[in-house]
Structures are given as C-alpha cells and as structure tokens.
C-alpha cells in the first residue's frame, strides 16, 4: 500500500487514503487512518466544515472505532496522531455539549467515554506519538498525555495546556492523572490550577512535550521516536509521594483561597483530585477525576464561566447584517491616534503591537514625548512579563510614528481621538480632522462621557463619526464599547466593529447615551461607596465586601486607580443627565480639590507608596461627615452597592442602551472584571431571583433611602417571576 507523496498539506503530511478496514463512508468522518510503508499508522483529525478539531461524542466514538482497528493489527510498528488543520491540533471537548448535559448521569457518560478512549490509547502495546501543530488544549492535550511521546512545532499557533479550571472544570479525561505522573506534582499543579496554556518552547522546558520539530518535519520526528520503542520515564516517586502531596496541599489551598476568596470551586476540587490521585493507582485517580468533574459540571459557576467563554467567542466574530461593500471588507492598514495621554498612549501601544502602523499626534513635542515614553514603558513591562520578546517590542515601537506637528492623514483608515475630555476641544479636533483625512476615513472618539452625536454634528460628514471606547489599562482590558451616534451609518459601525476585532479586542455595540454602558453602571455603585464612606463606613470594609462578592478590586481602590478627578468628571457629566441618583458625594470634590487624586498623586483613599502595598489613608478621616453607616452590617454594605449596579444595569437594558442582556453582562465582566463566576449582574439577578432582590431594595426604600427604587424592568420581573435569560 504505497502512498505517493502528493503536494504537501499545510502541515506537510501525505494525502489521506481510506484504510483497508473501514467501508467507504457515507458521512464525512473526522478521524481517519493513513497507513504508511514503514508500518506506522497515522491517525488524522480533520473535522469537516470547521477550522478546528474538537472532541464531541461522535468524534470520541470514531476514534474508538479506529483504535479498535489498530488494536487488532499485528504488523503495525507505531501510531502517530496528527491534525490536518492549519492552526489547531485538537481544541478540547465540545463545550456546547457540556452546557447541554442535563443530569449527572449524562455527565458521567460523557466523561467515561472520554476516559475510556484515552485509556485505550495509553494501553496500546506499540509506541504512540502525538505530533502537535496548533492548539492542543484541554481534551486535546489529554490525548497527547495518553500517548507515549509528544512532539510539537515551534509555531506561534502551537499552544499546549489544560485550561479547564478557567471555565470551572478540571481535566477529566485523564489529564489530572497523567500530567503529574509525567512532570511531577508541583509543576502539574501549577499548570492545572492556573489553567495554563503555554507555547511549545515552554512546554518543552517543563516536560509537557518531549521535542520540538518544525511543522513539516513532525511526522518524520515522530517516526524516529517510534523506533526508540516504549519510553522509560522517571516516576517522580518523591515529588508524587503521599508525603509531599500532604505537605503541598494545605499551602496551595491557602494561596488559592487568598486568590479566589473561595469563589471558584474548580481549583479546590482540582487540587483535591490531583493531590489524592497522584499517589494512588491510575484507576483510582481516574475515578476521582470523574467524580470531581461531574460535581463541577453541576455548579452555576461552571455554567457561567462557559457562558463567558462563549460570549468572548461571539464578540470575536460578531458582524452586522449589512451588505458588504468594498470599503468595509478591507482590513485596516493605517491608523492614527490623536492625544498622547495615558489612554492615547495605551491605545497606540496596543494597535502597534497588533502589527499596525500608528501615527501618534499631539499638540507639541513635550506631549508627544510623554506619550512615547509611556509606550516605551508598556513595551518594557511587556517584555518583563514575557508578553513580548525584546525583538517584538522593538518592532512594535517602530510602528509608532510620532507627529508633534500637524500632518495630513489621507491614508489613515481610522483615526482615534483620545484627547482631553473637553467637548469644545474635541469638536475643534474633529473639525480639523475633517480637513486632514480622506472621505473614507472613520473618525472615532475614545470619550468616556461626552455626547458623540454632538461631536459628529459639528463635522461635515457626521455619518463617519463613531465612538470607540477603550478601557484602562488598554493592554489588559479586552472590552471596547462601540458607540453608534445618531448619525453613524451602519457601514461605519460595521467597520468600527471589525476594527476592534482586527486588533484583538472584544466589542459591544452601545447606543450613544451618557456614560454609555459600563461607566454608567459603575458610577452609582462608586457613588454609593463614597456616600457610605462619608457616613462613617470603614474603607477596608467597603472594599473588602466587594472583593468578597467577586470584584477584582474594591470601589474605593478603583476610584484611586482611575483617579478621583477623572471619576468626578464622569460622574458630574452623568449627574447632569440622570439627576439625583448620580449625585456626587461631597467628599469626592473636596478630596480632589485637596490634591488627593488617588494613585497618580500618591494618595487618595489609599496611600500609594512605590514599593509597599497600598494602605488606607488616615488623612481622609477628615472627610467623613457622620457615623450613620457604622451600624450597617458588612452584608448590607455589600447588598447596597451590588443592588445599585444591578439596578443601573437593568435600566440600561430598559432604555435599550444595548438590546441583549448578554451584552450587559459581557461588558461588565470584560470592562470591570465583574465577578465572572457570577456571569454578570443580570445573570446574578436571575440566579438570586429578581423577587428577592427587589424585595430587599424596597425594604431599603421604605427605611428612608429613596435611591434604591427598583427600575420598572426589574420590578416587573419580580412581580411575574421572569428572568433576564428566560431560555437558559
């Protein structure tokens, strides 16, 4: 059975032929066998109609069938698992299937099927190699772990890891059992608990793969490994001993608790499964895995985190149903950013790191210099944290073209204005931009709170003006609010959306309204924190209860990080439109006037000293007006702040700032880090029950705090028992 080498596929592998055993398929298969002259059998994964391979039940069954065939062969020398996809080996289990699993019994079936297939691979008498090019994560890497050897290509697309804990699960197809036995307990815990995915070079270093070979040479390298026969590996008897596990587990648990405040059951469960399983038999460990993952699959946390994952995918691919025209379908090639302040520099650095040239414009050399220095620092920090190599950082920096004097911008596909939050200044900038750009150029503004429709109205071509609101810090916050002004044309909105996706951000389309979506929801929450502080609540308590809730940072700390002056400005703008409920507490203005701006001035609610942790600032005690809040319980403090977020979020949906509740939740999670395990403020409401929330809010209203009046939408849901997400 000679296989003539035809034109190599993307991975340089021979054209697949039907294996002798299987009948001509009526349905397109995902798993195919390719026999070779040298007695090595290739198992190729090529999911029809998709650019990725995933493990759904059907694929598991197909694989089981092919394994059965392989088991019956007497002449085979070895098996190599490969993928025919451009940038994915196998991307893990089918998460949709996971979500749909209704009962623990169904879950059991799914898990046991997967474990069984992996065990079969591990039990093969002939050597097996996983030849990985592209992403091998989750179940995909668990297949690799079941093999005797793992070889990976050094390409950018190749990612190796077990990210299950990030979606509230644990590696349940043998990963929690086999990885510690391969690389030792401590390193395995690091990978599994961190839900880490690493590039090939690092995978080699920690032992997750055995060798690195170029994509075109993977199969040849695999054949060499097969010639070596079954491997003889260290069993890490000391690292994986009961003793070490017993010592390590409590320390790790403590660290996990500190990090997660107990909100993420998956990591604790994974810790338990791995540390207990590592010193027991493989069968016992697999059983622990199975029971553990089934338990986790029942949790809301898991459903919510998988939900967030899908929302991210949705945001990556979102489009409008607008007829594609020539102007839209071209990717952006030239950009410009006006304003070299913190946001301008951050946006410029992000875009330049995405391989696009950016012209950075500001009013004079000094301002541009500040921006350039800021960008250089972002790149330096990125190199330090291994986000970029020094080479990549230099190339990125070179894509920034400073413009301290006015320059024409005809070639810019999009210009992003990120100047000072002053409406008159922005209008002037837009009017000038009208002259400097070409008719096709999209003019976007990064304003947080100013009316975009008014800015657009002051230009000659208002339909090409759109809002593109980035979040601080740009390098970390994936969310971008894409804001449609009244005049924004659908084509321009589509282009702005595609641009956000092109540069790797996750967009949410929002109506032009003060504060847009995220800031509008945050402000009442921050104001309440400020009011409670003014009424005597302790800084530590206010921030702590929100950390307990699952926010990444407490409200007063957030005010310090953003800057009290900036927050005050945004809040004041919102107060003009929304009245009493956005009224800024007096302490904010007083502290700002006294120069207590937060981190940027060294002190706000906290003292920010260079090398030390931030401590509550004793100097702000003078801004406390009363002691009324001293009696409020921590529980109630938390409730009050959370209610206001939920209420404002519901209002945004009510007013159709966005049309889909998923957009509200997604934006809050990605824009503020709102407890992802809760799925967002609206999902949280569904989980707790609108009736309960509204009841508590009404109680507060009755006891004198009118600003807890629930909005109509929320009150309505409480009455009829409805949900924001009626179907799921």
């Amino acid at each position, binding site marked *: 059975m000679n296989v003539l080498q035809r034109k190599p596929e993307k991975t340089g592998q021979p054209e697949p032929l039907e294996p002798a055993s299987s009948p001509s398929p009526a349905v397109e298969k995902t798993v195919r066998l390719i026999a070779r002259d040298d007695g090595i059998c290739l198992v190729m994964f090529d999911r029809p109609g998709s650019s990725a391979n995933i493990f759904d039940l059907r694929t598991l069954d197909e694989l089981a069938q092919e394994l059965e065939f392989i088991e019956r062969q007497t002449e085979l020398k070895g098996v190599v698992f490969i993928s025919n996809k451009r940038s994915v080996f196998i991307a893990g289990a089918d998460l949709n299937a996971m979500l749909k699993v209704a009962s623990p019994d169904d879950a059991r079936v799914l898990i046991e099927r997967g474990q069984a297939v992996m065990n079969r691979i591990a039990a093969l008498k002939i050597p097996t190699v996983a030849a990985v090019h592209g992403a091998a994560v989750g179940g995909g890497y668990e297949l690799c772990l079941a093999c005797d050897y793992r070889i990976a290509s050094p390409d950018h697309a190749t990612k190796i890891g077990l990210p299950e804990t990030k979606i509230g699960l644990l590696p349940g197809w043998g990963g929690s059992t086999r990885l510690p036995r391969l690389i030792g307990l401590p390193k395995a815990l690091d990978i599994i608990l961190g839900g880490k995915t690493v590039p090939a070079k690092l995978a080699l270093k920690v032992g997750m793969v055995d060798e690195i070979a170029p994509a075109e040479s993977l199969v040849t390298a695999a054949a060499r490994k097969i010639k070596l026969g079954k491997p003889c590996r260290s069993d890490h008897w000391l690292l994986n001993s009961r003793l070490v596990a017993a010592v390590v587990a409590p320390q790790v648990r403590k660290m996990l608790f500190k990090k997660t405040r107990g909100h993420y059951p998956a990591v604790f469960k994974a810790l338990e499964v791995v540390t207990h399983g590592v010193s027991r038999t493989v069968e016992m460990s697999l059983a622990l895995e199975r029971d553990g993952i089934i338990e986790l699959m029942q949790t809301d946390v898991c459903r919510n985190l998988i939900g967030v994952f899908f929302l991210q995918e949705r945001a990556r691919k979102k489009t409008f149903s607008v007829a594609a025209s020539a102007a839209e379908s071209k990717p952006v090639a030239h950009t410009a950013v006006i304003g070299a302040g913190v946001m301008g520099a951050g946006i410029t650095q992000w875009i330049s790191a995405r391989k696009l*040239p950016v*012209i950075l414009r500001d009013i004079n*050399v*000094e301002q*541009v*210099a500040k921006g*350039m*220095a800021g960008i*250089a620092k972002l790149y330096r920090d990125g190199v330090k944290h291994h986000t970029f190599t020094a080479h990549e950082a230099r190339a990125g*920096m*070179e*894509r920034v*073209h*400073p*413009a*301290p*004097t006015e*320059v*024409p*911008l*005809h*070639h810019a596909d999009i210009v992003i204005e990120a100047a000072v939050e002053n409406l008159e200044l922005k209008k002037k900038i837009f009017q000038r931009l009208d002259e400097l750009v070409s008719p096709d150029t999209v003019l976007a503004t990064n304003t947080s709170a100013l009316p975009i429709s008014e800015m657009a109205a002051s230009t000659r071509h208002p339909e090409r003006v759109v809002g593109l609101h980035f979040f601080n810090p740009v390098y970390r916050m994936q969310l971008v609010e894409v804001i449609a002004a009244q005049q924004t044309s659908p084509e321009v909105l589509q282009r702005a959306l595609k641009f956000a996706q092109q540069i790797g951000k996750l967009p949410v389309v929002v109506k032009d309204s003060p504060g847009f979506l995220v800031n509008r929801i945050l402000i009442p929450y921050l104001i309440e924190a400020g009011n409670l502080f003014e009424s005597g609540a302790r800084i530590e308590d206010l921030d702590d209860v929100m950390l307990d809730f699952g926010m990444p940072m407490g409200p007063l700390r957030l005010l310090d990080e953003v800057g009290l002056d900036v927050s005050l400005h945004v809040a004041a703008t919102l107060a003009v439109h929304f009245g009493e409920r956005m009224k800024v507490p007096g302490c904010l203005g007083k502290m700002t006037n006294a120069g207590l701006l937060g981190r940027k001035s060294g002190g706000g609610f906290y003292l920010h000293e260079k090398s030390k942790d931030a401590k509550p600032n004793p100097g702000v005690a003078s801004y406390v007006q009363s002691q009324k809040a001293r009696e409020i319980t921590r529980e109630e403090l938390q409730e009050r702040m959370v209610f206001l977020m939920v209420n404002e979020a519901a209002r945004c949906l009510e007013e159709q700032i966005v049309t889909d509740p998923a957009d509200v939740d997604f934006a809050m999670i990605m824009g503020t880090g709102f407890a992802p395990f809760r799925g967002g403020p609206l999902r949280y409401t569904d989980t707790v029950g609108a009736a309960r929330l509204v009841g508590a809010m009404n109680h507060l209203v009755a006891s004198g705090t009118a600003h807890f009046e629930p909005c109509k939408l929320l009150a309505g849901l409480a009455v009829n028992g409805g949900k924001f997400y009626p179907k799921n």
Partner: protein
Amino acid sequence: MNPERLVVVDGVRTPFCKAGTDLAALGADELGRIAVSALLTRTDMDPALIEEVIFGCVAQPAESANIARVIALRAGVPQSVPAVTVHRNCASGCEAITQAQEKMLAGRGKIFVVGGTESMSNIPLLFTSSAAKKFGQLARAKSVMQRAKAIAAFRPADFKPRIGLMLGLTDPVCNLNMGETAEVLAREFDVSRAVQDAFALQSHLRAAAARDKLAEEICPVFRSDGKVVTRDNGIREGQSFDALAKLKPQFDRRNGSVTAGNASQITDGAVALLVMSESRAAELGYKPLGALTGYAYAGCDPARMGLGPVYAIARTETQTGLTLADADIIEINEAFAAQVLAVIKCAASEEFAHDQLHRLAPLGEIPAAKLNVNGGSIALGHPVGATGARLVLTALKELKRRNARRALVSLCIGGGQGAALWLERM
C-alpha cells in the same frame, strides 16, 4: 524634448549631535529610520509607492548589512520595495540623490526615498589581524591543551585596538588623515590660523542665529529613556575668537594651524529626502522644494582632497553652463576652515584655473554673503554619510525663504574627489 527632472518634494533630518552625546546610544540604522519615518509622516506618502530606498553610509555597521534595507523595513516601507546603500565617502548623501536621478533617467523608477546616516559614536574598535588570527585559533581549539596553548599565544599588544574612526579618516593611498590634508592646503595656500578661526567663528555665529530656521528641517528624536532630542548640540552659542585661539593644533602639534575648533565635528545624524520625477510629483499633488538641475563628481589629488569642490564645480560649469555667479546660495561643506578658504582662493585664481582646471578664466568669487549662510559643519557637525543630503535640504529651504532661484552645493571628499550639485527652486 527635455528629460524629466528629479525634484525634491521635502526632506527632514534628525538633530545633529556630537559623537558620544545625545544620540550616541542610537545606531545609524535607528537614526535613519527616525528620519525616514518622520519624512513619510510629514509628506503623507504611501510607502507602497516608493520604488527604491537609497541611503548613504560610510561606516556601515557590521550588524546592519545594507543599512538602507534595514532602515527601509524598520521605517515601515513594504518588503517589496528594494533598497541599496551607497558610499562615496563624505558625499555619500549626495550620491544617494544623484543615483536616484540616474535610475529615474534609466527608467528604473520614479519615486525614491534617499538620504544618508552616520553614527560616528558607534564606529567600532578593531582587533589587529594578528589578534584576530589568535582568536580564530582559540575558537577552533577542541581539547583543553589546545585551548591553553591558544590562550598562551596572546600578547599585550594584541589587546591594543585599532580605532575604526581614525582608520576611516585616514587615506590609505596618500597615507595622510583628513586633517593632515587640510594642513597641506593651509600651508600651500597660506591660510593663516587667524583666518581659519575667524571663519570657524562665523560658522558658529551664523548657525546660532539660524536656530529657528534650522528647526524647520529637524524632526525630534524620542529616545527610549524618555528624553527628547530636538536641537543640534554642536553649535556653540557663546563661541569667541579667543576661545578658538586657545586650542592647540590637532594634526601638526608644532607647526600646524588646523584645530578641533576650526574643523568639522565628529557627529551623529541622519537625513531623509523624498525625491521623484517632476511629473509624478504633480500627479500626487505635491509642491516640491526644488529640482536637481545638474551635478558632477570629479577626482583630484588625495593629499589635497579639500580642493575637490573646485574641480567638481568646474565640471558642472562645462555640463550646465552655470557659473558661480549664477548661484544665489552656495553651500560648501566645512570639512575644515582651511579647506574651504583654500577652495575660495583657488576658485578665484587664474593660475589655478590654467594649471589645474585647464581653462582660461577662473571659476569666480564665492562671496561670504552667499556662502553657508546658516552655518556649516564646523558648527553643526559632519556625520559623514549624511552631510551631502543635509546640504541639499538646507540649501533648498533657504532658497524658499529668500525666494531665490539657484543653489550650488559642493563637498570635498576624502580620497581625493569633489561633488557639486545645482538646485533650482520650484
């Protein structure tokens, strides 16, 4: 039908800074990249339309082979655009421009980015060839014994480096360094120390007075450490005749007159110009600064390389019919005060015209009012690969300011050559 003219659309340069100071940490490729990036931004030029990038560089850094290519790619010019580095010593910056002209006339393209760059701070020290051989033996040594033997072969003299800068500034054919050739001219043409110093002072005073004008050609350099460089730092605002007089002669301790003060400075800097055919410029809607209307390179005695301009200017007169009197602005590179002054004397000398140029009439006068009106390399510095382009840029800008018609740019070239270019305002 007249052949198409090459026009200069616009140009920009980095500040020129003394070696070892503000720009020392930037390599020649980085300086060139900054200049090209600023040029493309200013002119809103789509880099995909460029047909070749031509850059002059004398001390081509070992790590940037074909530095023009490195500069082009780093500045965002697409991979499909070819690039070539040129070297005609001190006139490399001119060579880039004139080669663009020749390519255009040969039908090899219409739009070019040209210029020159030099980082004299980073000219390397070199091992002697005997030391290099021993290093090679050490690298090839396999066993411990072999390695020990190879190490033992080194002598203290092996660690005395050859100074690249000095080597580059010495002409191997006549075995004189550039300063020594200037001394030759100072002696032969009786250019006194005092006259040289006065000329040098004038260069500084004119440059200091022209800071604002010079700022029009300069793009800021944003260093990675956060500092911004915006000014030429060779210019001495408070330069005085007395300060110059105090300096000791640099190249002939006992009887010389050429000092560090009346010679050009060792400097870092880069210049970039956008040049294209006249018709292309019109098509793209550009209003060029001016056109190249004639040029010549001429060879002369390496020991008297400073006289190069006279020979080259004479050639352009033959070529174009233009004489010194036709120039409203004259830029003669101030490699050394002595050298420029010798050139002035020779240009006016009938005897020189007979003997050396084989013509009856002398070239003419070079009045101080027309010459180097905004200062020269004595004050600004002479990054050797870049200066040729700077002179063209600065002359064109000054023509515009004065609403004048013609400029003559000329340089002496180490190795015994001269370059001369005629420019006409548009």
